[in-house]
């Protein structure tokens, strides 16, 4: 569950009614439980396709191509991958990062930048509508 933060404090009462102060952080907070590795990726469609390819009368080079293509149907559950990442060894974490199974928000750049952007856009809104007339 993404956390929500209150933003844009101390606004005029009338304007305050006009917009929400809530923001939803773009960063995922991993859960405490470590999921089973098998639940991170659903390969059921991949396996069904590969069974069909193997049973076919196609030449081997075509089978090789189709087997590779079948992996496009592997379903990765990225929340579970992030949960697993939080409990993984440093070596596993580095390889998960390289494979883009998670994205690390280094120095909280994304989270802080987002809060700053919300703050800035909220300030502009307040400035424009406390001091300027709306467009005709």
């Amino acid at each position, binding site marked *: 569950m993404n956390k929500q933060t209150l933003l844009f404090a101390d606004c005029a009462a009338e304007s305050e009614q006009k917009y929400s102060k*809530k923001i939803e952080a773009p960063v995922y907070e991993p859960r405490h439980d470590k999921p089973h590795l098998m639940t991170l990726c659903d390969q059921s469609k991949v396996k069904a396709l590969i069974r069909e390819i193997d049973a076919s009368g196609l030449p081997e080079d075509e089978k090789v191509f189709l087997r590779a293509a079948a992996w496009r*149907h592997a379903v990765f559950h990225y929340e579970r991958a992030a949960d697993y990442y939080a409990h993984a060894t440093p070596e596993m974490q580095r390889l998960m990062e390289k494979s*883009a199974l998670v994205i690390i928000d280094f120095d909280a*750049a994304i989270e802080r*930048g987002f809060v700053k*952007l919300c703050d800035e*856009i*909220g300030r502009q809104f307040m400035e*424009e509508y406390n001091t300027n007339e709306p*467009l005709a």
Partner: protein
Amino acid sequence: MNRLPNDFCVFILTHGRPDGVQTVKSLKRHGYTGPIRFIVDNEDKTLDRYRQNFGADRVIVFDKKAEADACDEGNNFDERRTITMARNACFGIAEKLGITYFLELDDDYSEFKFRFDKSLSRRWIILDLDDVICAFLDFYKSIPAKSLAFSQGGDHIGGFCGVTKLKRKCMNSFFCSTERPFRFVGAMNEDVNTYATLGSRGDLFFTFTSVQLDQAETQSQGGGITDMYKRFGTYCKAFTTVMMMPSAVRVSMMQSNNPRIHHTIDWGRAVPRIVPERCRRV
């Protein structure tokens, strides 16, 4: 009041509508004071009219066939009436012009608005777009994202939930940098194809929901990509993304004022989660 950086420019991607480029009027009405360039392809029969209307130095022409040949169109329709080539050409054009940051816009925007609550009235119109663009650029420069976008009405279908979000998508408007190049893929649904496929491989694309642009309804305006959608139907459009991301995208019906076949993305399966650095063990 913030000043726009010198290495920034708005690119309006347009085709066949030299007398109907609503975006340029809207930008000025909303207080944008920076440079604008019109990105037009060399197959556009109205090219001279663009030059006449906006000035030859502000109309940048690119080789559409060359761009199409360098792009995975995702079909064999041999149909180039699509924006994908222009989107990809912008990176090279920006480099030639000495521009680092640019904002790709379509040519049919009517308004730019704040979007903080459910009601949308003209009272929410942005008066100083320069300030908004500066804030977006500051954010864009501070994060490793490939691109950043304003929201659209479609992002709030079902009602605005009252929460400002950073969605993992980019459509229609694209803040880009020559220092973070990427290629759009697919002749149809190129924005969705791109943020879905590249997003699944770890590239970041964001939409900030509390700034919204309004445009003419898709498939209702003549010219440009609209004709292609009419010809091939929106099933082909949506299915392009399914082909590229079968594990996370399916075709479904979009219920709106204009119900039509559309793509649906299962975001839990589409893009990796962004996690705090403290989860990282060393």
